[in-house]
């Protein structure tokens, strides 16, 4: 078994108002994994993923990246663990598509020609090169989401976290985004996806984590856990229900 890229040990974060937070979370992520993070609203998914990127810091326990506590080098953590937020509009900082993608590498103080080469390569990879001079405000929802991913990819992350990536996207937009994410996973990036729409990503994921009341309630293979989703307040994929109903037929 390969050594984990990232692991959490007894990770705990309680909010000051005493309502919500995450408690004693233990799990690890290896290279190339595709993990679905499921759970109903308020179960602690967003709090957990913000810890993995170093945006929130643990009150108890620790997070280890390549075996080292992430607090020792937060810049390396944020470079290695990219995060795509739920609302692409508030994530976009640049005023053209090109500038938006260059924002991360500029923060890492990389040389200008290296930044330009990297940005062009990422825009080509995500099929955004034709839009490089466009104002991000004028892009469609799907294009904005791909732009947000491009901004992360330009920093060469090993793990990419998606927080509800299909929110506010139409079906073609979701399908195109899913193809992009699957392609990234095929190329070796580990993916963690917090989503309610488990059905769309079921066939791509290798593992599922289910959160309930701030705790990691389940951690296992997708096939084992999919039947338990309804119990934790997440919609079970229709395909599974239909398959189950056929198996009950005489």
């Amino acid at each position, binding site marked *: 078994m390969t050594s984990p890229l990232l692991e959490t040990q007894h990770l705990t974060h309680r909010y000051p108002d005493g309502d919500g937070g995450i408690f004693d979370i233990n799990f690890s992520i290896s290279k190339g994994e595709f993990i679905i993070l499921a759970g109903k609203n308020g179960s602690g998914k967003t709090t957990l993923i913000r810890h993995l990127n170093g945006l929130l810091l643990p009150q108890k326990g620790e997070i280890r990246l390549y075996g080292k506590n992430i607090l020792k080098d937060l810049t390396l953590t944020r470079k290695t663990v990219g995060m795509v937020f739920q609302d692409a509009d508030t994530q976009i900082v640049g005023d053209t598509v090109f500038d938006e993608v260059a924002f991360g590498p*500029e*923060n890492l103080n990389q040389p200008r020609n290296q930044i330009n080469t990297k940005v062009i390569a990422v825009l080509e990879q995500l099929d955004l090169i034709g839009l490089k001079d466009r*104002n991000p405000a004028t892009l469609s929802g799907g294009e904005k989401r791909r732009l947000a991913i491009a901004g992360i990819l330009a920093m060469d992350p090993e793990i990419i976290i998606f927080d509800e990536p299909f929110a506010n996207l139409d079906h073609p937009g979701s399908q195109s985004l899913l193809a992009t994410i699957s392609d990234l996973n095929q190329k070796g990036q580990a993916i963690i996806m917090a989503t309610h729409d488990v059905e769309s990503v079921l066939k791509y994921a290798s593992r599922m984590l289910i959160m309930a009341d701030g705790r990691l309630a389940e951690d296992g293979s997708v096939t084992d856990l999919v039947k338990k989703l309804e119990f934790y307040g997440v919609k079970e994929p229709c395909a599974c229900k239909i398959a189950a109903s056929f198996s009950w037929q005489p």
Partner: protein
Amino acid sequence: MAALNPFMFRQGNSLLHCLDTRCKLLWVCMTSLFILKADFLACFIFLGVLIVFIKQIQIGVKDTLRQLKLFLLFLGFIFLARALTIPGDPLVFFHGLTITRQGLNQGGLVALRFFLVMVTGLVFSATTRPASLKSAAQWFLKPIPFVPEKRAAVMISLALRFFPLILQQANETANAIDARCGNLQKNPIKRFVRLTLPLLKKTFLSADHLILAMEARCYGEDRTDPEFEPSGKERVFILYSLGFWLFLFFFQYASPLSP
């Protein structure tokens, strides 16, 4: 997909798009100062030049005027205030108020000058990427001692980034209020409060999200320095602009028609 407001950057190949932002910034400062001293004729000639720029940038003139209606209303107030308060040869008496010829002249001139400064700013912002404006500001501030130029530049860039977002959110909030017959409320203070509170909440939330997104991508002050792309036309452009204004001022002050 959001519509562009006239102040937002739009890509293009016009002369102003090609110029280095430092040169454009210098041009805006220089032009604004000259406008403040210009007479009617000079103002109208410069207005003609601005219309050519606007056509090149491909901003619809009618659409722009429609979006600037509040500003135009403000200019109308300035015009009226001047017309009613400057003493001179009376033209109209109305309920104890007197509009003078000098007042009309002065009011018209001041309103026109304000309008030209605003349109110059519009032409500048529509052809300049906020990121390059930030870089230009950083470049101009660098030689000044004790000024943290990188921090100041980021503040400028975020303000520029946020201004259109706030306008967009104000529009959305107003629509949401009107959708529930909020437009029937005639008390302007209540209407203002109903619009402002949710708008402030939204703005602070957006600011929070933006900060998180910037932090998530390792934002710090020690960033790669900006890159400028001069087109080579900058010196000629500044010299022509300077010549243009000197020529206009020569006629303004030296011609026998000047007061």
